[in-house]
């Protein structure tokens, strides 16, 4: 298995200046991970932990007040037999865009709401096609029909407006739009939020099928671990701008290491289970005002003295399972 995305020590912060007060929000705070071809990775974390910023950075959507403060992103590209890793952040804006279009497709949060309400669906797709220079109209029509069929959308969707479709159908249209050119990487931000249980299941099945058929790589962001359980191969647990645990789905559920992960898993309700479940106590720290030491220590039931002073490093405890927590020994990060 090859790495298709490599991220090293990535730092991207929001810096804003309101009324002479400088505020630095450390949304992506020194993150390192690899994503391999043909896998589905889930990023789990609460609202405000930096997940969306991480995605935006990976896609090169770095508009002020967001700034990169360090780190590298490498994308794997195999063009005409030539393999190479491209240093994404060092590309010019135009080249970044080109690379993105070739490799990555993005399904943003609430994407079902981005469909232009006064254009028919078919026209929206055409608009999109026109933005890709040198595209044959007939070929596109063929691709479109194929895509709609594989997503189980009736062809007459092309003649409808977005408000005539149900939420689930709109989400499918958004996914169709994002994946029409069969990208190698699909990044979806909270694809099931604001959908009811039937639609959620629908979308997850859909993404699963897409993955099976096209053998692409998927990166799914969601705060709901039940989603991850049902589709992801590996899960990254994100907290306060950092990745605190990485593992295969089964491992994360059967043997969670980080206390935060343990809370997340044990709080999930199940039909048939009336045992008392508890949420994670307290609330996440403000990313502009992080506490000293481990960012989780204020809510951690197993905190030790060292946790208040030093920050643990993400370390591999097995081939596939990594955690950043002093409970498992390990070093601390040297602060810069």
């Amino acid at each position: 298995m090859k790495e298709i995305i490599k991220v090293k020590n990535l730092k991207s912060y929001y810096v804003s200046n309101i009324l002479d007060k400088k505020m630095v929000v450390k949304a992506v705070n020194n993150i390192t991970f690899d994503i391999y071809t043909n896998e589905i990775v889930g990023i789990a974390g609460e609202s405000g932990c930096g997940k969306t910023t991480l995605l935006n950075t990976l896609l090169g959507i770095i508009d002020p007040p967001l700034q990169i403060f360090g780190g590298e992103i490498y994308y794997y590209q195999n063009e005409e037999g030539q393999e190479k890793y491209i240093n994404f952040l060092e590309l010019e804006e135009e080249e970044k865009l080109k690379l993105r279009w070739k490799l990555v497709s993005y399904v943003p949060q609430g994407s079902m709401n981005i469909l232009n309400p006064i254009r028919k669906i078919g026209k929206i797709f055409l608009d999109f096609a026109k933005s890709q220079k040198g595209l044959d109209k007939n070929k596109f029509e063929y691709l479109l029909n194929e895509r709609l069929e594989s997503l189980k959308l009736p062809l007459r969707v092309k003649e409808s407006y977005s408000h005539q479709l149900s939420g689930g159908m709109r989400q499918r249209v958004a996914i169709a739009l994002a994946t029409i050119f069969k990208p190698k990487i699909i990044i979806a931000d909270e694809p099931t939020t604001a959908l009811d249980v039937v639609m959620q299941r629908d979308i997850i099945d859909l993404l699963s099928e897409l993955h099976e058929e096209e053998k692409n790589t998927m990166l799914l962001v969601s705060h709901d671990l039940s989603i991850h359980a049902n589709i992801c191969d590996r899960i990254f647990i994100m907290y306060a701008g950092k990745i605190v645990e990485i593992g295969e789905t089964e491992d994360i559920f059967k043997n969670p290491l980080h206390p935060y992960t343990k809370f997340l898993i044990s709080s999930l309700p199940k039909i048939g289970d009336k045992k008392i479940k508890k949420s994670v106590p307290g609330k996440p720290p403000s990313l502009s005002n992080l506490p000293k030491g481990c960012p989780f220590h204020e809510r951690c039931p197993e905190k030790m003295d060292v946790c208040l002073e030093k920050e643990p490093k993400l370390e591999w405890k097995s081939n596939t399972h990594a955690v950043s927590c002093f409970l498992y020994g390990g070093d601390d990060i040297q602060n810069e």
Partner: protein
Amino acid sequence: MKIRSFANFIKHDKNMMFSIILLSITLVMILIGVFSKYDPSQYFLFPKSEPPSRSNIMGTTSLGQDTFLTLAKALPNSLLIGSMAAVISRILAVFLGTFGGYKGGKTDGVISVIAESFIVIPRLPLLILIAFTFKQQLNILSMGFILAILDWGWPSKRYRSQILSLKEREFTQNAKFSGMGDVEIILKEFMPFLIPYIIVDIISGIIWAIGMETTLSVLGLFDLEIPTVGTMIYWANYHNAIYRGIWWWWGFPVIFLIITIFGLYLLSASLQNYLDPQTRIQRIKVSKEEVKE
């Protein structure tokens, strides 16, 4: 905390700073005009058509008035008419727009139709007609009122649409279930959203009204004995000041008109930014962070 953040804001916003400079100039003129005992209707107090000199810093008019002091009397009048028109029209607009928007149904339908008819009226021609017919009876008060009645239609629609959208928001329901009555909801829940608009709207109303009154006066359709910026320009034109090179007679009124209007415009632009609900929420957040540290 609020005063401090406003002071901070003034320091940083260029629009606000320029507007304060410009409006201070206007304010000084107004104060001079209010406290001066000069009577511009006394013609031939000074030598006619003299260029600016040490005794008359803006020169004199062909009617023997001191340009500077006449302008000092004229500017507050123009501003008074403008302010009256703006305030009265916005009171009408807020009241009718809010009432119609909140009640909905037939009430809203009726008020909307009335507002629309006022919007559709071609204002300048109508004003010219009214002014022409009632030229002698027009004074500051009546001009203010007439301008007010012609300027409430469009704003009322804007407030109505604000109310319509605010009505649908969930906190309105919450307010109802907290036991608040309709009037209370409008005042306590909706007004904080409307007030920024109203303030900025009033300023733009002043600008429009001053413009209208000046236009009418320049055309000679106002009581020409009352000194306003417009009537000064009228008299200057009447005496062919441009051709005769008596530039100070129409020049200074025009300059001060521009200063005033531009100052008001910059004020409204910067206030619009400051009072926008989104930035207010941001400021609340930041100021709370300050307090924490």
